[in-house]
Structure formats: C-alpha cells, structure tokens
C-alpha cells in the first residue's frame, strides 16, 4: 500500500448540525487519481471543502499528510470577474504558496506563469482583462493557476461543468499529467463515461460512502442504484447520531453496517479503504 496523502477518520461534515458527509473513513493514497461521484446533494463539494479546511468537521478528522500542499478549484468560485485584473494577475495568485504575502515575484516565477498559460492553451491572453474571458477560457485560466500552485494534492470540484468537448479533453490531459507527476488528484465529476475512461479509482458518495475503490467495481449498477436511493432531505426531527459503537477495527478492514436510532430514519456508516486488494465494494447490512 502506498503512503496515504489524505486520511479520513469518522469524518462528518455538514451544515446546521445536519450531516452532508456522514462518517467517512478511509484514506487516499499518494499519487492516486480518484473521481468523486454521486447525486446532487450527496456531499461531494462538502467533502472537498472539508479537505481544504474551509469547512470544519462536525465530528472526526480529515488529515492531509504533513508537508503536502493542497490546491483547490471550487465548483462555485467566489471569483469577482468585475475586479480589474488581467489573466496574468489571476494566474499569478497561484504563486501564493511559494511567495506568500511579501516575497517578490522573480523572473523565474513569471516564466512559470507564462508556461502554465501555454500549457492550458492561453498563450497571448496574459494582458486580457478577466471579465472578457469566456467560461471555458476562465476555466483554463483557473487550471493554469492550479498548475502554478505546484501542489501535491489537487482537488477539482466539477471542473468540466459548462465546458466544451475540446476543453474537457485538454483539461483531462492536464489531470493525467499531474497523475503522471505522482501528484494526488481528486476530481468531482458527473459524467460516468468520462470517469470510467480516465479515472483508476472512484469514491461513490450518497452522503455516506456507498463504495470506494477501483472505478469498475465502484460504478457497478447495484452500487449506482443504491447511491440513487438516499434520502436527500434533512429532517429537523431526525434523532441525534450518537457514537453508540466504540469499536476499533483493524486498519484496512472493510466494513459497513447500518443501524437505526429510535426505529426510524435508518442510516448507514461505511468504512472503506481504496486499497486495490479488496475483493468487492461494501456490503450494506
């Protein structure tokens, strides 16, 4: 087993005491390329926010291995496109982890930015105001910023939304390049064909993890069916989720069980690792 880049221990993330990611256990190996799939409201974006640390866990922990730098491309960017900035200014933000608040941008840094723009097919766009970019061009520019960030763990939240086929192809090529450079990449995606074609491993979420492992195994019809049938609503009268089971499992032991509180709203807790030697997806109890 490769070393873990990212470890979830009983991670629960959510809003207003309602869980959006419920009791997630497992680890993401360094250098792995994982697709995160699931229905709307299944907790994919929430998980990304939890990993970056923008959202604090309600329970459990989410640990990025020490020394690993994280780059995050959110689904709903808070980018202010009316701000008077050029493409080069936007992409240069990616130098922050390297230069911080006061470090001067060197000639080498400017070269890095230029190369990143070239890699995403935006050469010659340096001086363009960002409010003149098309949706696809902006997405390319944001990928260039991720390139400049030179991170070990790269999180992309629905990067292929509203992007044309050619751009998707180019972005996939970049993702594969990162994978080849032994960076850890997690991508939230909806297109299962695309996931099957390009992503070795997949995490299937339905608030709880439904399956996690090799893509072909994870995206089997029965798993997809189970992922579809989750209760998307929040219930204000849902019972509190108490840690009734203080059990410790051997690491890597695949385990999933369901328990019901007060006889209604049953929910399942899953524990899965993305180790390739698992024979199957999790079993629902």
């Amino acid at each position: 087993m490769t070393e873990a880049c990212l470890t979830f221990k009983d991670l629960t993330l959510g809003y207003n005491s309602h869980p959006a990611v419920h009791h997630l256990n497992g680890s993401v190996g360094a250098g792995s390329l994982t697709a995160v799939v699931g229905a709307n409201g299944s907790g994919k974006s929430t998980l990304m926010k939890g990993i970056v640390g923008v959202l604090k866990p309600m329970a459990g922990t989410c640990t990025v291995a020490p020394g690993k730098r994280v780059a995050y491309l959110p689904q709903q960017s808070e980018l202010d496109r009316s701000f008077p900035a050029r493409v080069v200014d936007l992409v240069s933000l990616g130098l922050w982890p390297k230069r911080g608040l006061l470090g001067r941008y060197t000639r080498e840094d400017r070269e890095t930015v230029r190369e990143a723009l070239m890699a995403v097919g935006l050469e010659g766009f340096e001086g363009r105001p960002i409010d003149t970019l098309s949706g696809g061009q902006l997405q390319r520019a944001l990928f260039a910023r991720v390139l400049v960030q030179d991170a070990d763990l790269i999180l992309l939240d629905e990067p292929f939304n509203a992007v044309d086929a050619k751009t998707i192809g180019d972005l996939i090529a970049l993702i594969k390049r990162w994978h080849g450079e032994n960076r850890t990449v997690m991508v939230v995606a909806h297109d299962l064909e695309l996931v099957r074609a390009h992503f070795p491993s997949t995490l299937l979420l339905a608030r709880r993890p439904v399956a996690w492992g090799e893509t072909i195994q994870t995206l089997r019809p029965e798993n997809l069916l189970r992922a579809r049938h989750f209760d998307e609503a929040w219930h204000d009268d849902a019972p509190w989720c108490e840690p009734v089971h203080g059990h410790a499992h051997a690491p890597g032991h695949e385990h999933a069980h369901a328990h019901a509180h007060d006889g209604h709203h049953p929910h399942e807790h899953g524990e899965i690792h993305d180790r390739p030697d698992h024979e199957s997806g999790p079993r629902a109890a």
Partner: protein
Amino acid sequence: MYDLLIAPFVEFGFMQRALAGSLLLALGSCPVGVFLMLRRMSLTGDAMAHAILPGAAAGFLLYGLQIVPMTIGGLIAGVIVALGAGAVSRFTVQREDASMAAFYLISLALGVLIVSLRGSSVDLMHVLFGTVLALNDNALTLIALISGTTLLTLAIFWRALVAECLDPLFLRSVSRFGTPVHFVFLGLVVLNLVGGFQALGTLLSVGLMMLPAAAARFWTARVEPMIALAFGFGAVSCIAGLLISYHASLPSGPAIILSAGTIYLASILFGTRGVFNTKLRRHRHRTA
C-alpha cells in the same frame, strides 16, 4: 493667472496648511476608496463616517474641541463598529451590508445623543463638516501619520488585499490571511475617516475617499493606475476646492467635494470607459 491660482497659497499660511492637510488626506484615503469601491463597499465608507460620531462626540464632550481626544474617540467607535459588523458578517448568516447598517445606526444615534448633552447645533455642524481652513500643527501631524500608516499598510498587505477582492475563497484555501486582511482594511477605512473629520468633517471626508475612486474607474481597467489616478483626481479636487472657496468665499469642505463631484460627472461622460467612448464606439467593430 498667478493671482488666481498661486497667490492664495503663497500669501496665506492657513491656505498652505489647508492645502497640505487635504493633499495628505487624499494620499491616504483615495487608495482606500479604490479598494472600497472594488469590494463593493462604497456605502460602507458612508456608514463608517456616521459610526465614528459617538466617539468623536464623547471626546468633544469631555475635552471640548480638541483634535487628539476627538480622534481617539472616533477611532475607538469606528473600530468597534467595523469589528462588530465585520464579525457578524463573517461568522453569521447576515451579510455585511445589513450588519453595517445596524451597527452604524446604533452608533449614530448614540453620537447625536452625546453631542446634544453639551453644546449647540453649531458645535454639531463643526464636528460634521470640519474646518479645513483652521488646521493646527497637531492636526497636520496626525493626518500625515495617518496617510503614512495607510500607504505602508497597503504596501504590506497589497497582495492579500487584491487576492481577497479577486478570489476570497482561493485566498482562504491557501492562507489564513483572508479574515485578518479584511479587518486590517476596515481599520484603514476608519483611520482615514477619522483623519478626515477634522479637515472635512465626518460626512465630507467620505466624499474625498469615494468620489475620486469612482471617477478613476471610468479611465482604467487595472488597479495600480486606478489608485494613482484617484489620488490625482483627489489632489486636483483639493486644490480647486480651496481656490474656489477662497475666491468665492464659500465653505471649503463642500467646495472640495463638489470639485471631486464635477470630475466624477465628467469621467462618466468622457472617461475612456465612459458613456461617450463605450456607446459611440459600438457601431464599429473589428474583424477579430
């Protein structure tokens, strides 16, 4: 020509002080105004100007018309309102416009109440509309310190401030500067308004902050030139306002702000990104 433009500043000490004070003020508050505008907080300056009133009034109540206690009082009140409104918007569901409005209204009511405890409406007018023609050494030093501090702080936090405006979520994902830089910036807003209230009064100091910035937006699509231009407009407004005030015996504060307002109106029409250029050019386009 000399009599019209130069002589008033050469012959009269109070005009020199007024010029120095208002130019120094523009140096600090115009860049702050540009960022306020770009962060869509243009009205925040106005709210903060009201918010510093109870502090200034408390200083006035205790020590009379003295710049140091009034300034310190204004600073305290401004910082409390800025921190309170900022914290409510950062850590609760309420947005900054609502929390700012709530806090400044409370503060303003308190201020009017305090002023009414002593003195007449003439005193209130003085606090509100300032006396750029009666700047003493203390006031000049204070304004110089404030604009120095402002420029230094902006230079240090420049990158974080731009990142926080451009893509706040990105900044939060790579550093912890997001929230601190917002409060540092609100601090600068308060500082410059407090610096301005002696010269122009709490109400009109917002004008010197916002009008040149708003005008500069019509001329350039980059932050650095926008700031330089805003200061240029601010400086011209100060000079023109003081001259108009001198020759026509008009109050200096409103004269300065109306000069800035004229520049703003002209920029809407004639700026490179103004009405005439963008609307008239529309019927022609390039092939690519």
